[in-house]
């Protein structure tokens, strides 16, 4: 298979399959949770569950001082990496071009040099996260195969994307093909792993907030 054929295959059938697995998987898992439902609370409502739920979705984004003090690295690295990841994914011109192609609309991009710098920062942060996971006693004790797998499929698109943009190592065609494959790998692994937190975190925050809000307490 020539390089062009590989790129065509990756942009075509493989992307279709990865999209199906990703969307189907994510929806199945979310709906499984929702359809299972929660036990009805027979006590009288003391406050608004919905308001509590919605507020908690936002408020949980700000770490409380105790968590911040105890797990400074996790909180800071987590924020830096997630922010960087989304900026690179959503504000890089060729990516926006892809979204426009699929969704029909786009949005303004950031200059590529800024994206470039943010990519480097994100990659370094992810490497630090791995080192922390492997050296911190408790993290190491808690970590399983899935945690390392998830880390790998997250950092690969960043690294391959950086190499593809700067055209380092292989031919540009090959580098872009590898980058797209790494993203498809992420998509395929997503619904079967903790990466689902990207969607379930909102549900978890809402539930916690709703339960407390119903009781009329802060959450």
């Amino acid at each position: 298979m020539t390089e062009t054929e590989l790129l065509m295959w990756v942009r075509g059938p493989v992307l279709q399959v990865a999209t199906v697995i990703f969307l189907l998987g994510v929806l199945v898992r979310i709906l499984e949770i929702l359809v299972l439902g929660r036990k009805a609370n027979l006590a009288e409502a003391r406050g608004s569950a919905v308001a509590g739920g919605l507020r908690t979705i936002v408020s949980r984004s700000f770490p409380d001082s105790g968590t911040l003090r105890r797990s400074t690295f996790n909180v800071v690295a987590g924020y830096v990496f997630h922010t960087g990841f989304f900026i690179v994914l959503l504000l890089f011109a060729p990516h926006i071009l892809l979204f426009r192609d699929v969704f029909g609309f786009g949005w303004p991009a950031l200059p590529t040099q800024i994206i470039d710098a943010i990519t480097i920062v994100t990659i370094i942060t992810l490497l630090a996260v791995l080192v922390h996971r492997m050296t911190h006693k408790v993290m190491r004790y808690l970590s399983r195969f899935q945690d390392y797998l998830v880390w790998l499929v997250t950092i690969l698109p960043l690294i391959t994307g950086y190499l593809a943009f700067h055209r380092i190592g292989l031919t540009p065609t090959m580098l872009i093909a590898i980058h797209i494959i790494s993203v498809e790998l992420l998509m395929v692994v997503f619904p079967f792993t903790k990466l689902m937190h990207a969607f379930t975190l909102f549900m978890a925050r809402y539930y916690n907030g709703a339960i407390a809000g119903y009781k009329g307490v802060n959450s």
Partner: protein
Amino acid sequence: MSNEKTLGEVLRQQGITRRGFLKFCAATASLMALPPAMVPRIAAALENARRPSVIWLSFQECTGCTESLTRSHSPTIEGLIFNAISLDYHHTLQAAAGTHAELAREKAMEENYGNYILVVDGSIPTGNMGFSTIAGISNREMLEEVAKGAAAIVSVGSCAAFGGIPHASPNPTGAVAVTDIIKDKPIINVPGCPPIPVVISGVLAHFLTFGSIPELDALGRPLAFYGKSIHDRCYRRPFYDKGLFAETFDDEGAKLGWCLYKLGCKGPTTYNACATTKWNEGTSFPIESGHPCLGCSEPDFWDGGGFYKAISMPTGDIARTAVYAIGAGAAAGVALGAVNRARKARAVKAHQKVTIDDLEKDS
């Protein structure tokens, strides 16, 4: 077909002064993308170079490559280089045809066995030997026979270098490149559809000057002309870096000369000299004229997913697939959820307890 005189003697005979010769060398150096400081060396080498015999075979081609080369009006460097070589056979350009022309070719091969340069344009069909013939001889046979005594082979144009348009899906003639047939001779690929004329003459000039093959990249292309991608030398690159793209062919961005990536420009993955050497004696090149690069010097550029679609775009209709997947996912999710609920109801009814194993299950 006299190759006894050196190039210097030939030019002198034509009444070209030393000054004219130096001008010729300066332009040749520029053509070969060599630093001007090398002109004295080039002059010395060309002075004493012997005129190589060149046999040009045209196979499954559109003749665009020959046209590209001959569009240069004489006497330019291209014209002079063709004076400098002894073009002993070119079945499109020569007046003779048929048996006599073939006899002339065989004589040239015999006289210069092991030393002549074979130039090929056009791909070679392998499906049926009758698909493309010259004087009744199939392309493949002629190539194999002439290649035997060649010092080096130059594949001019994307068809000879990589198969070109005949090779594009579904390749009805079984077209292949020269490198797919000849394995035991040095082959220089000069791709492009067509290649820039100065690149063709630059390769010949290199041969004349140094008597050797220029440095080649992994695809057998001279690094001097194919070492950098269009993207790396494109004057519109600052717009790419700033994220300023033309969305259509006649919007404000297009008029201001913004980057053509969104319109399918293959600049990033294409290696050629278009951005610096340009076309028509340095007039312009496709991107400068407002059209995205086609990637014509890369293998399989015809099958690359469309000239107006950037290479990182999906080729299929992802949006539709996504809608179906969401629909199917919703249905499956609800169904599985219902199954789970039923299972939970049964468990509750049977007073099943939650054990530590349940809690330790992986997600």
